[in-house]
């Protein structure tokens, strides 16, 4: 192997170590660890399935136990996430399985819910959710703060959660 090729390979390896090392370090110290710290307080009810990171956004996948009082406690966690990651820089999806009834109900609720957010007729969100939940005999809970709409649908002992950002829809 000639000296030139060696030089290129060494500089390539060093560059890759520096870049990927820095990238993974940043991901661990600035993203993964703070997120885990936020959910540490709720670890009995919430488990983190996956954190997906790219330079423009962070996607978090959560699994929430049915016993968790989602509407009361989750809004405070989103505020903490906003402080760590920045507003609108993250999104949460839930890995809790949808029952066929919940799936059907969500298909109908989503129209009224998004229309309510988009048009600012927030009472529509409440009325549509109530109407559809009752139609399918599901228990529900819905809440909104200045940034997100939180929705919980329960079919028997299975719960399903949704969090929708108000700004993104607009």
């Amino acid at each position, binding site marked *: 192997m000639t000296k*030139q090729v060696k*030089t*290129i*390979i*060494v*500089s*390539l*390896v*060093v*560059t*890759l170590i520096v*870049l*990927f090392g820095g*990238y993974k370090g940043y991901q661990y110290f600035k993203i993964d660890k703070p997120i885990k710290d936020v959910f540490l307080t709720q670890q009995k009810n919430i488990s983190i399935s996956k954190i997906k990171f*790219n*330079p423009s956004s962070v996607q978090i996948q959560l699994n929430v136990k049915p016993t968790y009082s989602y509407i009361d406690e989750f809004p405070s966690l989103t505020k903490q996430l906003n402080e760590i990651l920045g507003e609108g820089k993250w999104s949460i999806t839930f890995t809790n399985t949808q029952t066929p009834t919940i799936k059907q109900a969500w298909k109908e609720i989503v129209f009224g819910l998004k229309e309510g957010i988009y048009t600012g007729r927030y009472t529509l969100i409440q009325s549509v959710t109530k109407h559809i939940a009752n139609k399918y005999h599901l228990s529900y809970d819905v809440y909104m703060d200045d940034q997100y709409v939180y929705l919980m649908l329960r079919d028997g002992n299975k719960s399903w959660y949704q969090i929708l950002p108000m700004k993104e829809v607009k």
Partner: protein
Amino acid sequence: MILPIVGVGLGLFLFFLYLGVPVLPMLVIVGIVVAVWYFSGSNLKAGSQWKNGSSHDQRNAIPNIRFTDIGGQTRAKKELMEALDFLIEQEKMNEYGIRPLKGILLTGPPGTGKTLMAKASAHYSNAVFLTASGSEFVEMYVGVGANRVRQLFERARKTAKKQKKNRAVIFIDEIDVIGAKREGSQHKEYDQTLNQLLTEMDGIKKSEIPIFVIAATNRKDLLDAALTRPGRFDRHIAVDLPDKNGRAHILSLHTKGKPIHEEVDLDKVANETFGFSGASLESLVNEAAIYAMRDESVYIESKHFSQAVDKVLMGEQTDRTTTLEDKTRVAVHELGHALIAELLEPNSVAQVVLTPRGQALGYVRHHPKNDRYLHTKEQLENQIMICLAGTAAEETWFQNRSTGAKNDYEQAIRLCKTMIETGLSSLGIIDTTLVVPDELSKEIAHILDALYQQTFCLTKKHHSFFADCLNILLIEERLDGDQFRSLLAQELAS
């Protein structure tokens, strides 16, 4: 410097690819930047680090030439090999307390194989070998030359250390560019370069790695005395024009691998090529091969060598058309040369040719019997008579002269001057610088006049011979030596 950047660039490229950043626009931008940098030549700033490529250890880059591949020059090769042996067998040298040689100066006319010898030295001495040309040290910026000399020697030492060798050889081609005599205050920059070279070769500063300098020049007379003194260039090896045996050896080397006809006698070709350098001989073989190819001949034959000798000596055959009158005059002129040459030096004419070649409209080719380095008065006079024979023949046949004999006169006058300078004229042994030009001129005229009269008598005596030969030469445009001699024998018999 550029290599780590390549590695870093590649790393960045892979990283961005991993992140999903579009890399195509980046590649385009990088391509444009590299192109601008490359073509603007911004990487070659004056006085900056000397381009590394020019003086790296070039042993591997040099064609595989050995001393056995160099024809002739036995003495020069022996001396050079001996000097290199000192480098190789340092222990033995220490036993005898021999001071290592600092340098060797190869001198001689162009094309005699000085550079070839340096290349062979690279293979012979298993040392770090750097080459540079005198002109590489010259730049319009002051101090650059000296800096480059320093860098060259420094690099030789560093490379030797790196390769764990205890010696280094530097070859400087055309050293007269930087090693010219220091006179006046005209070329301070050249002086600085030379001073640096002198200091590096034998200065106060001592280095643990001895550097052996081989330099080549064909203008030894121009070199500064400080450079040619012992301790700098200890030995001056004259790489002269090859002698007959040398020429034969060179020809045998160059004809290797070429389809030479078995009838071709290389010794004969060597005999006919007195004064040819190694380069001319190489050119000769090449031209002969070209002639053979033109003829679509399977082998390179004697006639191709003969044509090639004419080509190298006289230039390419031209298709200049001449009037019959001019052609007749040229024929008579050349026959005059050939007649007198054959009368004075029998068997010397090789060919009489009437086809224009180079600047000449016709020519007579002689074959020298042996390489001659000394000439007697008689031989010189014969040569002058042969030169004047063209004009004498014209005067015999046409009763007038022409302008075609200009070169003959120049050659004759040169020979006259040689006679005067060597004490072979009626002036005796003289210092030509102390003689009045008028007197020199008179002596030259006297010699020429006397010899011309003799020549004219001979041509007049053989007037009828011209009539015999002229028609054949005008038709065939070529008379071989043997053919010419048989015609002359008939003439002499009658």
